[in-house]
């Protein structure tokens, strides 16, 4: 029998019992639909992270925090053991993530390839205003040295008393971003002892592009950040103690960056570049995605029992027909192939219809999400359907369907023609 004839015959056999086929296809449909949706959700998230991460660049900047090492055998569920800190001032406190400024400087001295060090000072700001107009809440933060951000207008920060406005704040100030460049804004913060509202005037040098991460804060220069930090924290017990800081490595050699990270690790610090951080998020989403897909696979497992059932009944119903085909010279392999094709076709139509349904629902979901809760998340769709992923889903489901059909198809292929013809 020719392949084409086998496919036509398989299709016709399926159509002989439309209701039964349709019900079995429905079961696969449910699995395919779920798999496409869960996978699409994961892909949507990954896409989103990808676009967000592109808002910041700086391949040779390493963000660092101290590790608190758990003694071997101790699980994270138990309370951490207190360790005595030695008298030596240079020792890091084994019980805390905090690192002193002087300790950071000493650490950096062990790394001749480090060009600059940026401690990550945490400051609190109250408001921002342009021309004494309306005041808006704002978070301020200096970018680590060596990191640049994507801008809609203007340039990166390159001197003191400068600010790059986050997109949504710039928008309420003026629709003309270019016109904002060079203007002065006033920021308010509480500082001094006792704390009182103080202001600073900063020159707008740029406007950042939209994005989830980029809307969290407006970027100011490091000196201004330090000035505010001093005003807010001088004299407090945790003054000069930070949990994160970053190294800017000279040159652009990824191998050098890698070796710095490794040596940091030996000294008890975790160092990550922006790419590392996004990879971590990416992997976390990947795990989440696999977890979600598992639910879909449970549905597919149930569907495959439907396929097995359908085929077992079909083999029984068609025993005589199989007997005749074998008497007329149809080989075992062809009989097996015919029944396998029938199960694969059930899988195929279930997969195609499930994917079509999922895309339809996904499109509606995307439209709805962007209208209601993803407004600020521009360029993000809740579900992303990628051709490669969809093809993979079809292939996987066809494979599952094939495997489900193996046993009945094998039984059909092994039928003895005489006995099959005699079957009542």
């Amino acid at each position, binding site marked *: *029998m*020719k392949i084409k*004839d086998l496919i036509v*015959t398989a299709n*016709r056999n399926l159509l*002989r019992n439309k209701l039964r086929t349709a019900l079995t296809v429905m079961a696969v449909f449910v699995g395919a639909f779920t798999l496409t949706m869960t996978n699409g959700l994961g892909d949507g998230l990954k896409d989103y992270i990808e676009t967000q991460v592109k808002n910041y660049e700086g391949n040779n900047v390493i963000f660092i925090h101290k590790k608190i090492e758990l003694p071997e055998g101790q699980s994270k569920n138990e309370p951490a053991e207190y360790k005595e800190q030695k008298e030596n001032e240079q020792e890091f406190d084994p019980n805390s993530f905090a690192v002193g400024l002087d300790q950071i400087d000493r650490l950096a001295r062990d790394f001749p390839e480090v060009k600059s060090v940026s401690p990550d000072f945490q400051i609190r700001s109250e408001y921002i205003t342009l021309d004494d107009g309306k005041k808006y809440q704002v978070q301020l933060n200096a970018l680590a040295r060596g990191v640049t951000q994507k801008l809609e207008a203007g340039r990166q920060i390159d001197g003191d008393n400068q600010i790059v406005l986050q997109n949504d704040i710039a928008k309420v100030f003026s629709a003309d971003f270019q016109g904002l460049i060079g203007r002065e804004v006033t920021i308010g913060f509480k500082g001094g002892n006792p704390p009182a509202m103080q202001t600073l005037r900063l020159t707008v040098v740029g406007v950042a592009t939209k994005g989830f991460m980029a809307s969290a804060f407006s970027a100011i220069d490091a000196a201004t950040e330090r000035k505010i930090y001093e005003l807010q924290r001088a004299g407090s017990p945790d003054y000069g103690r930070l949990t994160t800081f970053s190294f800017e490595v000279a040159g652009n050699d990824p191998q050098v960056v890698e070796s710095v990270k490794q040596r940091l690790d030996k000294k008890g610090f975790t160092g990550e570049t922006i790419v590392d951080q996004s990879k971590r998020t990416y992997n976390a989403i990947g795990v989440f995605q696999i977890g979600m897909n598992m639910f879909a696979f449970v549905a597919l497992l149930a569907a495959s029992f439907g396929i097995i059932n359908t085929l077992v009944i079909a083999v029984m119903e068609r025993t*005589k*027909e199989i*007997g*005749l*085909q*074998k*008497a*007329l*010279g*149809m*080989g*075992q392999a*062809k009989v097996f192939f015919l029944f396998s094709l029938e199960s694969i076709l059930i899988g195929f139509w279930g997969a195609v219809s499930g994917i079509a349904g999922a895309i339809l629902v996904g499109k509606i979901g995307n439209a709805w999400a962007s209208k209601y809760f993803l407004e600020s998340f521009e360029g993000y769709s809740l579900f992303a359907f990628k051709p490669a992923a969809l093809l993979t889903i079809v292939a996987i489901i066809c494979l599952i369907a094939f495997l489900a059909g193996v046993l009945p198809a094998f039984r059909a292929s092994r039928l003895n*023609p*005489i006995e099959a*013809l005699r079957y009542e």
Partner: protein
Amino acid sequence: MLKAIELSKTYKSGTDEYRALNGVSVEIADDDCLAIVGKSGSGKSTLMHLLACLDAPTEGRITFDGEDVTTFSNHRLNRFRNEKFGFIFQQFYLNGRDSVIENVVLPLKIRGIGAAERRDKGLEYLRAVGLADKAQKAAKDLSGGEKQRVCIARALAGEPKIIFADEPTGNLDSVTGGMVEETLFRLNREQGIALVIVTHDDELAAKCARRIELRDGEVVAAR
């Protein structure tokens, strides 16, 4: 053409053994017409299945044009049956929902012949059994006699050397049975296709050129 030498067949089920056929030798010539007769349970169908290579004998050999068929591989045996033999059974084994022509061309489809050629040949043999006008009908809508003639057309479609017919008229009344017999004998006369007919109808057997009678798996009479 087909030669069976000292065929025996023993059916085993658990510890029970049943010798359904015992040392039967038959020869079928190119345009032979052979009837196999005997009482029910005498081993007629068993012999036919062995001759048609649908089953392997427990002992004995079958040769076709001098070649030992029992040595053929499965693949070769399937192809051999498809090309050399046609089958007609007491039951029709038609696919009721498919059209008549689809049923007729089944052996050609299994052989791997293209759709157009299949169609031409199918129509040709439907004409030979007088059913060309019913080609597109669903097979289930035919009468019993018509169905059996479709089966003949199906047996012919593969252009076989031998047609094996197991009780071909057993399910038909005498008039339609007569028409089916007539068609078979005409094909034997005009196209030289050998006929092997299993029957317990003595009248039908009498119309065949030769007959062998079986009793308890052994040949008790031959003509």
